[in-house]
C-alpha cells in the first residue's frame, strides 16, 4: 500500500498531531454539549493560548537552553500560561458574544454570526497588537530522538505532547465525573430546563464550561506553538480539523473527541502519503463530509441533551 513504507513514522507523528486536535476538539465538544452550538471563535482561544505560552516562556527563558528538571518546570509553566490565556479569552467570549444573545433568545443564526464576528475581531486584533509575523517559543527542552519504535523516531516533543495531553484528559475526566461543575455540565447537557428547575445555575455552568474548554484549547495552542511557532492566523486550520475530529468521534462525547482526534491525525498523514502533501486539508475535509453523510452521529455516537 502507498503508506506502508513509512507507516510507523506517519503513525507516530499522526498520533502527536491527533492529540493536539483532541485537546482543541474537547473545547468544541464541551460547549456543543451544553449549548448545541459550535463555538466558532474557539480557534482564537487556541491562538491566544499560543501567545500566552509564548509571552511567559519568552520572559522566563529568554535565550537560555534549559534541560533536565528545569525543562519539566518550564513546560508546565508554558502549559499553564497557555491554559490561563485560553480560559480568560473563552470567558470573555461567552460574556460578550454569547450571553447577550442568550438573554434575548436570539435565533441560532445570530449565535453563529456573532461567533464568526468575534473570531475575526480577535485574531485581527492580535495581529495588530502582537505583530503579524510568526514568533517561535523559546524551547523549554532540547528536542531530540528519545527512542525509536519500528524504525520510527519518537522525539522529545512527541513525549511532551503525549504526557501533557494524558494528564489533562485525566483531570478533565475527574472534573466531569466527580466535581459539582462536572455534574452541572452533564445535567445541562442532558436537559437544561429540568436542570435549572433542580437548582443548577445555568449561566454559571455555561460560563464555566467555556472556561474549561478554553483551558484545554489554550494549552493545545501552546503545545502546537512549541513546534510550529505562534502567529495570529494559527487558529483557523487546526481548529477546523479539530471540529472535524469532534464530529468524527461523536459531538458532545468527550471520549469521542479524543478518539476522533487520533483517528483524524493518523488518517491525514496516511492519506497524504498516498497522494501529495498539498491535498492534506482536502483529505481532512473529505473525512468530515463522509462522516456527516454516512454516520452523522460519529464513531462513538452523540451525547447531546434535548433542550425543549
Amino acid at each position, binding site marked *: 500500500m502507498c503508506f506502508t513504507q513509512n507507516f510507523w513514522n506517519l503513525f507516530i507523528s499522526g498520533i502527536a498531531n491527533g492529540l493536539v486536535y483532541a485537546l482543541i476538539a474537547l473545547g468544541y465538544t464541551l460547549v456543543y454539549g451544553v449549548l448545541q452550538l459550535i463555538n466558532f471563535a474557539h480557534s482564537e482561544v487556541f491562538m491566544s493560548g499560543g501567545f500566552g505560552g509564548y509571552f511567559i516562556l519568552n520572559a522566563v527563558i529568554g535565550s537560555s537552553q534549559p534541560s533536565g528538571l528545569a525543562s519539566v518546570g518550564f513546560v508546565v509553566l508554558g502549559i499553564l500560561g497557555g491554559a490561563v490565556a485560553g480560559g480568560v479569552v473563552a470567558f470573555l467570549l461567552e460574556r460578550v458574544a454569547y450571553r447577550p444573545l442568550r438573554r434575548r433568545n436570539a435565533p*441560532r443564526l*445570530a449565535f453563529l454570526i456573532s461567533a464568526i464576528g468575534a473570531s475575526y475581531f480577535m485574531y485581527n486584533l492580535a495581529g495588530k497588537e502582537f505583530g503579524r509575523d510568526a514568533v517561535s517559543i523559546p524551547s523549554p527542552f532540547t528536542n531530540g530522538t528519545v527512542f525509536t519504535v519500528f524504525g520510527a523516531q519518537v522525539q522529545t516533543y512527541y513525549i511532551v505532547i503525549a504526557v501533557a495531553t494524558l494528564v489533562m484528559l485525566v483531570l478533565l475526566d475527574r472534573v466531569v465525573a466527580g466535581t459539582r461543575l462536572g455534574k452541572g455540565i452533564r445535567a445541562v447537557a442532558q436537559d437544561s430546563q429540568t436542570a435549572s428547575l433542580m437548582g443548577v445555575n445555568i449561566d454559571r455552568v455555561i460560563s464555566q464550561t467555556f472556561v474549561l474548554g478554553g483551558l484545554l484549547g489554550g494549552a493545545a495552542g501552546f503545545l502546537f506553538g512549541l513546534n510550529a511557532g505562534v502567529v495570529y492566523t494559527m487558529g483557523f486550520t487546526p481548529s477546523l480539523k479539530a471540529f472535524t475530529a469532534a464530529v468524527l468521534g461523536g459531538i458532545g462525547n468527550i471520549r469521542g473527541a479524543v478518539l476522533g482526534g487520533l483517528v483524524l491525525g493518523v488518517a491525514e498523514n496516511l492519506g497524504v502519503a498516498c497522494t501529495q502533501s498539498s491535498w492534506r486539508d482536502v483529505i481532512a475535509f473529505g473525512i468530515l463530509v463522509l462522516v456527516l453523510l454516512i454516520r452523522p452521529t460519529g464513531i462513538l455516537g452523540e451525547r447531546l441533551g434535548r433542550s425543549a
Partner: protein
Amino acid sequence: MSAVPQQGPGSAARLWRSTDARRLFSCVVGALVVAVITGPSGSSSSPTSGFTGSLFRPRALVFVALGVALWAVMTSRRRFGDLIRRANDRVVAAPRQLLANRWYRYVVYLAAFAFAIWYPTILSGYWQEVLVDQIGVFVLLALGLNVVVGYAGLLDLGYIAFYAIGAYSAAYWTGALPIHPPMHLNPFWAIPFAVLAAMLAGVVLGAPTLRLRGDYLAIVTLGFGEIIQIVATNLTGVTGGAQGVIGIPHFSLHAGSLKYVWHVKALPYYYLLLVFVVIALAAFRSLERSRVGRCWAAIREDEVAAEASGINVLKYKVMAFSIGASTSGFAGILTASKIGFIEPGDFTVQLSILILVLVVFGGMGSLLGAVLGAAVLQWLPQLLRVHPLFGFQPPDLFIYLGALLVVMMIFRPAGIVPSRRRRSEIGLAEHGVGTADAMSAAGGPVA
C-alpha cells in the same frame, strides 16, 4: 428599570448590579476597546506598545468621555425616546403617504435609476474603478448571499466558491485554461454558461449537505470554500495552478450591425453591472412574493411545521442555494473578463466572510438592505484610504468588521435596512415562537 439606590448596607452592591451601572461599565469598556482598535499597532518585538500607546495617553480620556456620553444617551432614551418618535412620525408622514402611492414609487425608482446612470460619469477614474471592482461586484455578491442567508435562513460560509466557478468558467469558455472547451466563445456569450455553472454547483453542493443541521452546514460550506482554493491551486493541468490564468478576453458584442467592445476602462462594465443588478432586483423581488418566497418564509419560521404542511424543504433549500449562486456566477465572469487575469488567491474564505458581513449589516432578507450594506461597507474603507481618519489603518479592517458583526447581532440583528418580515420573525423567535432561520430541525431557544 434602574434600581433606586437605597441607604444601608448592600446598597453599593445593589447600585453595582443595577442596569444603569452595568451599562455604564459596558460603555466605558467598549470605548476603551475602540481606543485600542484605533490606536497604534504593536509588533512582535514590542507587544505591549499598541496597548500603552492607545490607553496610557490623553486620547484615552476622550474615548472614556465618549463612552459616558453614549451611556447618557442610552439611559435618557427612555425619556426622550417618545419625543424623538413623535418628531420622526411627523417628518416621515408626508413621504410615507407619497410612497404608498404606486405611481409615485415608480417615479422614485426612475429617479434613482437616472441618478445611478448619471453620477458615475462625473467621478474620477479611480472612483469609477472602485465603483465596479469593489462596490458593484460586491453588491451582486451580497444580493446572491442574501437569498441564501436572508430568504432561506441558511448560513453559507463558502459562498466565494460560486464566484470562483463563474470566473473559471469564463476562462474555460474563452479558451484561456489549459483544458479547452468544445467551442471557443466570446466572453459576452459565455455569461449564461458561467451563471449556469454556478447554479449547477449550487445544486451539487446543496443536495447532499442541506439535510444537515444548520451549524454543520456552516462548517461544511466553510470547508468547501477552503477546498475550492486548494483545488484551483493543485490542479495545474486544469486550472492553471497557482500561476493563475492570464489572457481572458474582454467582453465584446457583435450582433448584426451592433458592435461594441469593452476595454480596460471601468465605466462600460459599470453599466453592464447596473443592468444585471436591476434584473436581479426585479427577479428576487418577484421571487420573494411568489410561492417560492412564501415557502422559504415558512421554512425559516418553523421548519418542522413547513415540512408537516407538505413543503419539500430540501428542494426549496437547494433552490435558494442555486438561485443565490447565480449572481456570483455573473460577478465572477465580469471580474475575470474585465481584469483578464484570475488566480486562486482571489478566492479566499475571508472574502466569503466579508460578503456575509455586508448582508448582515445591510439587512438579511432585505433587497435594499443588501445593496446599501454592500455599497456602504465597501465604499467606506476606500474613502478612509484616501482620506485617513480616526486612526483607521487598512490592515485593521477586519477588526472593525468582526466587531460590527457582534454588535449587529446584539443590537440590531435584522440589519440597518431590515425587511419587515424578517424583523417580526426575529422578534417572534425571541419570544419563543418559531425559529427565525433554517438552522435546526427542532426549534427552540439555545439553552
